[in-house]
């Protein structure tokens, strides 16, 4: 057994050597166990569908020579509400409106692109686009992005030739679905389907249509945590457009 500095170095070497071996061994062992509970950060919640990131509810209904389109007003970032006056229904021209549910950023960008295309169309052809034509345009635009889609489900509602109401919806890659009575989309769509199916009657006058669509919207968003904070309803007839803001359960 040596003494003095040599012994010290030997010890140091041994310590250092075993220290390195311990690190090497640790990397071969299983990773350290996770913390007891995840830190309170919103971003690390279990994966939500991208369509449920912002939360939305949009519905359109056909009445007698008129149509109604309505949406909720909540903008959320997963569970946190960020705005209570978010616009989801946009005007294309006096008799054509589009409601965009799903990811809010895609809704806004898609609306800007569509408004651009429609304005050019108006300048070139010197007339407004028919709702059926506009629906085909939206469908083509969405399918262009087939493998990197806009995460939106549009609802298109308009008065066509001879002021016949026209509504349709499509999925995020452009599969058109025409309907004669009502169309729904958004996180609250399942409750909306049920509510509309039971409350809808054909050939309703504008006032009755307003009541029906408002009730359907409010009762459905009450069942959905991601949409709500009131409603915004537009009733469009050949002669006028009525906008109303609804106050429901503000949560």
């Amino acid at each position, binding site marked *: 057994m040596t003494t003095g500095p040599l012994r010290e170095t030997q010890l140091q070497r041994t310590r250092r050597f075993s220290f390195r071996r311990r690190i090497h061994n640790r990397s071969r062992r299983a990773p350290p166990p996770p913390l007891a509970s995840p830190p309170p950060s919103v971003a690390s919640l279990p994966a939500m569908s991208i369509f449920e990131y912002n939360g939305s509810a949009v519905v359109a209904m056909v009445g007698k020579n008129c149509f109604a389109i309505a949406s909720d007003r909540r903008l959320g970032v997963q569970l946190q509400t960020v705005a209570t006056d978010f616009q989801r229904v946009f005007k294309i021209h006096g008799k054509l409106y589009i409601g965009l549910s799903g990811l809010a950023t895609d809704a806004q960008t898609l609306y800007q692109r569509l408004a651009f295309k429609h304005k050019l169309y108006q300048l*070139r*052809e010197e007339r407004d686009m028919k709702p059926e034509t506009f629906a085909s345009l939206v469908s*083509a635009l969405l399918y262009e992005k087939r493998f990197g889609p806009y995460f939106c489900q549009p609802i298109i509602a308009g008065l066509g030739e001879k002021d016949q109401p026209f509504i349709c919806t499509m999925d995020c890659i452009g599969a058109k679905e025409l309907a004669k009575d009502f169309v729904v989309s958004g996180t609250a769509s399942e409750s909306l389907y049920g509510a509309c199916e039971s409350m809808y009657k054909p050939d309703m006058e504008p006032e009755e249509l307003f009541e029906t669509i408002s009730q359907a919207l409010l009762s459905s968003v009450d069942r959905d945590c991601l949409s709500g904070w009131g409603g915004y309803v537009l009733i469009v007839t050949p002669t006028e457009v009525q906008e109303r803001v609804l106050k429901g359960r503000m949560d």
Partner: protein
Amino acid sequence: AANGVVIATEKKLPSILVDETSVQKIQSLTPNIGVVYSGMGPDFRVLVRKSRKQAQQYYRLYKETIPVTQLVRETAAVMQEFTQSGGVRPFGVSLLIAGYDDNGPQLYQVDPSGSYFSWKASAMGKNVSNAKTFLEKRYTEDMELDDAIHTAILTLKEGYEGQISANNIEIGVIRADREFKVLTPSEIKDFLEEVE
């Protein structure tokens, strides 16, 4: 005409040995738009191909048949492109595009420069000044389509050297049913007999 459009042309073949049925000067661009040309045949074929493709692209985007003005505008834009790009020459054809859409019957002339005009009645090619004078006298706005066909045949006859027959001319017609049809030789023969 008031309820349709008619376009007609003479088919001048280089020799009597040429099979007339293989030469088609009047073509359709869409089921409701037809076109006739005066000038170089091959240039015409290229333009017809491009215009048909543009009409179909429009339909694919909007699921609506292209209005006549839009197709004329796009065809004229192609012709203008070839007057300004490098290494290409302008198209050696003037087109008469006839169509029937929601704005009624329409007739457009497109020049190699790319400028286009809407006409109630027009002529181009050989003998154009005489033909136009004849049309100015004979054309009325509310004439029926059959009268218009007769007028067109007479206008062709004015400048035709030799004998007009059902095989030497081509006539294309769109009526209110919005279907562009090239008349068969037997139908042309009926009209010729009426004119005589």
